[in-house]
């Protein structure tokens, strides 16, 4: 696995996706390097989730290419998925299994080998789920707790890239803040993170770079350090009107 900071872990080149008459992605070029959090902003239908689905191999590009750690997602989809951890808006787990059982299951599917339970429990603790919570059935978990299990799965998988689709949507501020902290920790370990969100504050708080999408196009890319909150909001609204 190439984790050189110079090479992008997630990359698209002239990526297009069309659904009938609708151009969901239009000539999208982006790259996310190791140790970087790239935040995609955009209104509903802007193409953010479509982009994530292309990286996951759930959608085939109409033209252009998407790469995960140098591999073309259309050529070697399964291998690409093994490099990625995906956290959707709502991490879906098996309700009749406990948190640790879910983690054991998904970690084994992700890595192809059975993992040591104590190590997995440590991952759960790392993301803020204590042992008592870990052995409870997931059907009793809050959304925030499920998201944490999702992060723990990513940790157990040792993925080089994280794809997050509106991960903080519906989380209370405390849970969202904890989640952002977990993302920063992952970034510090060298993971490339691509996250979609509507939450400008979350984007500003966590991202290394921000991209704004509108009607399938990546209309602008910004270094978050260059912008204050007010600027980002104004810029976002300006692009949405365009």
């Amino acid at each position: 696995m190439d984790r050189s900071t110079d090479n992008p872990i997630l990359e698209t080149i002239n990526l297009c996706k069309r659904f009938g008459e609708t151009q969901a992605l239009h000539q999208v070029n982006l790259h996310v390097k190791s140790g970087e959090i790239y935040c995609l902003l955009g209104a509903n239908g802007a193409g953010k989730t479509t982009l994530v689905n292309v990286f996951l191999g759930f959608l085939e590009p109409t033209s252009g290419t998407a790469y995960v750690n140098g591999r073309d997602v259309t050529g070697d989809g399964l291998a690409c998925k093994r490099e990625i951890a995906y956290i959707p808006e709502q991490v879906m787990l098996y309700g009749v299994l406990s948190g640790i059982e879910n983690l054991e299951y998904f970690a084994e599917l992700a890595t192809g080998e059975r993992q040591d339970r104590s190590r997995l429990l440590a991952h759960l603790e790392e993301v803020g789920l204590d042992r008592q919570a870990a052995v409870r059935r997931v059907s009793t978990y809050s959304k925030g707790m499920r998201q944490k299990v999702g992060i723990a799965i990513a940790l157990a998988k040792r993925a080089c890239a994280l794809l997050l689709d509106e991960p903080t949507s519906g989380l209370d501020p405390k849970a969202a803040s904890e989640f952002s902290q977990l993302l920063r920790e992952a970034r510090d370990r060298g993971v490339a993170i691509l996250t979609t969100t509507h939450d400008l504050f979350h984007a500003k708080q966590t991202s290394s770079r921000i991209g704004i999408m509108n009607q399938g196009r990546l209309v602008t890319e910004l270094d978050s350090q260059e912008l204050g909150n007010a600027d980002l909001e104004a810029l976002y609204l300006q692009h949405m009107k365009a």
Partner: protein
Amino acid sequence: MIRRIAWREFIEFIRDGRLPLVGGLFAVLLVVLLAVGWLQESNLNSERSAAQGMDYNDWLNQKNRHPHDAAHQGMHVFKPIPRLFLIDPGIDPFVGSTIWLRSHRQSEVKFRPAQDLTGLQRFGTLSAAWMLQILGPLFVIVLGFGALSGEREQGTLRQTLSLGVAPQQILWGKALALAGSLALLLLPALLLALTGAGSAIEQDRLDLLIRLILLGVGYALYLGIAIFVTLAVSAVAPSSRISLVLLIGLWIASVIVAPRIAADLSKAWHPNPTGVEFNTRLDNDLEHRYRKVWKEKLGTEKRWGPELPLNRWGEALKVDDHAGYEVTDEHFARLWDAFALQQQSQEWIGLAVPVLAIRGFSMGMAGTDFFHHREFAQAAERQRRLIQDTMSKDLIEHADPLGNQHFSYKAGSSLWASVPPFEYSPPKVGFALRHNKTSLFVLLAGLLTWIGIAHLAMPRSA
């Protein structure tokens, strides 16, 4: 990975109560039906064996009498119940098992070959086989209808696919979980069946064991089809609710409606006569043939007169009997062949309606199908002819030299004892397999087809 998916699925079956509740009920019912079948088989066999002995004893202990009177009394033969009747009674409850071997014509007292509704076409004797054939697929549906549609609804399928798990691995994991659950539930029944087969003393144990293994293979193929049909439908159904509705609809169509249509179709393609038609045609042909052979062999059609005195009665009986054998053989062969062709058509319809294939195969391996019955009926007829020929031969040897003492001759115990008791060994497994290989092939082809369909139906994304 497949095993891991299967194990997780299995844990879910247990924890959400589907396996313990529905499966437990299924397993208990199956064991009860097997136990009842075993009891029934044991009782019937001992009753029949006792009756067979008593009947032969009656034959041996007849008073001195005219041989033709003895031929009219005849014998009864009782079809031995195969040990695997406990699993599948097949057509036995419908075709009867006792045949009266009497003079002049093949008995059809207990086998009613020309009735409109044949044993081949009937449906629904409560037995272990019925449970497996009818309720087995329903149980698979209950366990598996949401296997993929439910996971898609919950979002766990997307989660799993995003990890780089191949859809085929998910499919086989789920299939393994369903198969494992079925195996677990069938284990007690299998042990009971093995014990039942092992305790058989009257039947070759190795033969029984092979039959039991083949039955297992047949049902594994059949339930395998049910598993992959369920998974294929669950994979394409947009929701669990629709998946359940589709599967229940398919179940009703394939195990309840289609077999009846198939029976009617096979009868239309290969019609068999009604009882009245069969008897009328047989009587007419017999009458015609009797006249013809009397003319040829005895020089007259007129029964008894100066041209054919009564002291040639034994000879005339023999001519009658042998002419009758040919006619009866022709008629019964046509009838049996019509049934065989009906069964064959149903076997091929089994490609679309697998319950037809497993039904035939199961009866065949249990030794309770039409072909086994035909073997028994033919063996009984051979015994009847032996009695007739022995009696006629004795009459010829003791023809009346005086011309007026035709009925005063009386044979004794030595003649009765010259007819051996009826011994019948049911055909071996090779016979059963030869007659049911199409069903086995159809089941295998059905399974492979549905595995292919399920593979194609598996979602690549969610």
